[in-house]
């Protein structure tokens, strides 16, 4: 185990309005890897991501992000966060959105152009966001998170509803970023997306089912897809 952990949780619990959402999670997300946060909807994926980026307070336990406690102000420069619904300004053009967030991320105008190319929005560059399709909007939101090339990218279902070719290209972009040493935590409720990840964090009902490499999951469960493995693991835990 040479790789360090970009995110480390021990005994993390989160309750919202007294309803427990996450129960006593202990886990690690390796630096420089793509970790898939996989689970059905309602399993707590978004709450865990919000806790990691620091907009959700944890009620118990220790959550360390890039060696700082989650929520530390210094982390705001180091984390790129893409929420499930594309959160950008509808009444601005693509480039106006990115230029504004570039100032906040202390990034440059050149980088804005570079990122627009990366997410393939050159043609929509001067189009107003409210006139874009869902997939295009999602890419604007992703582009905002890439500004300043943060060390950690937390992406909540970034590829849902995208054209398969574009999805393929985005996953390539994610692996390029990981190979440059960035840490990526990507959530999905679609199991076949999990097959593109190195590491997995399987979540169900606010509890962790699996937190190891994908390879080991398939070996342990003697399956050849994460979807089957997910079911196998639930039934194994049920017996234990």
């Amino acid at each position: 185990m040479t790789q360090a952990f970009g995110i480390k949780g021990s005994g993390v619990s989160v309750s919202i309005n007294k309803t427990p959402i996450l129960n006593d999670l202990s886990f690690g997300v390796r630096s420089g890897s793509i970790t898939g946060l996989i689970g059905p909807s309602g399993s707590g994926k978004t709450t865990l991501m919000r806790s990691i980026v620091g907009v959700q307070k944890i009620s118990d336990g220790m959550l360390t992000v890039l060696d700082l406690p989650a929520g530390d102000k210094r982390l705001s420069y180091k984390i790129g966060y893409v929420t499930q619904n594309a959160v950008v300004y509808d009444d601005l053009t693509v480039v106006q959105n990115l230029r504004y967030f570039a100032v906040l991320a202390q990034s440059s105008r050149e980088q804005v152009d570079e990122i627009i190319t990366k997410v393939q929005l050159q043609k929509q560059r001067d189009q107003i966001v409210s006139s874009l399709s869902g997939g295009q909007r999602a890419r604007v939101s992703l582009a905002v998170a890439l500004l300043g090339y943060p060390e950690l990218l937390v992406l909540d279902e970034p590829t849902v509803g995208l054209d398969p070719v574009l999805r393929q290209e985005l996953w390539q972009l994610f692996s390029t970023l990981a190979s440059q040493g960035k840490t990526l935590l990507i959530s999905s409720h679609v199991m076949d997306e999990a097959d593109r990840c190195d590491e997995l964090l399987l979540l169900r009902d606010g509890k962790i089912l699996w937190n190891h490499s994908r390879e080991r999951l398939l070996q342990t469960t003697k399956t050849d897809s994460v979807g089957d493995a997910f079911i196998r693991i639930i039934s194994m835990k049920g017996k234990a």
Partner: protein
Amino acid sequence: MFHIRMTFATAGRILRQLSHDPRTIALIFVVPCVLMALFRWLYDGNLAVFNNIAPALLGIFPFVIMFIIASITTLRERTGGTMERLMASPIGKLDLILGYMIAFGLLAVIQALLASTLVLYGLGLEVSGPQWFLIIMALADALLGTALGLLVSAFAKTEFQAVQFMPAFIIPQILIGGLLMPLSQMPEVLEFIAYCLPLTYAIDALNIVVTNVDLTMEAWRDLVVVIGCVILAILLGALTLRRRR
């Protein structure tokens, strides 16, 4: 610590958003002028009444319009999720609110200049005191409306609620602020309440400029009170922005 670039980027961003909505901009600038012209027409046969009411209206219209625009814009930011994205970014709460104040302040300057110019030179309002004070006061009132709008947007969950804050917070201030009835002739309790509300001072100052050749101490006190309330509302507004839930 302040991030001046982020503050100005925020102001620029808000103005750019509005620039995609030219109708709103036109309404901000044109509505107060049309209303003032309407009042002048209404009192065509009795200019003394117009002379009494017009100065106060010059403060009230920008105040109300900026209040509505600021509260709705901020509410949209809060409910649309962009506020959370901003709060997760390095921008500070005060940087953000000051950015808002600069953007709306700029609109307020143009609005105040347009309305005052029209009233003074087009509609023939007679002012004994310095005209610049009238304009400064109109501007201070617009900023007050902006700052209060930012503040109350924290207490609204929907745009419907935010719009209701207009009758709830603004109309009482207009009713007992000295426009309809001189403060000294009101029931004592109401007079006391009136002196606790910022718009009272705004209306008082505007009335003073019209009747007095020189600026009295009271006029300056009024300006200081209004600006003090602006600063207070900005600081309270910053407290309502939460970094973490």
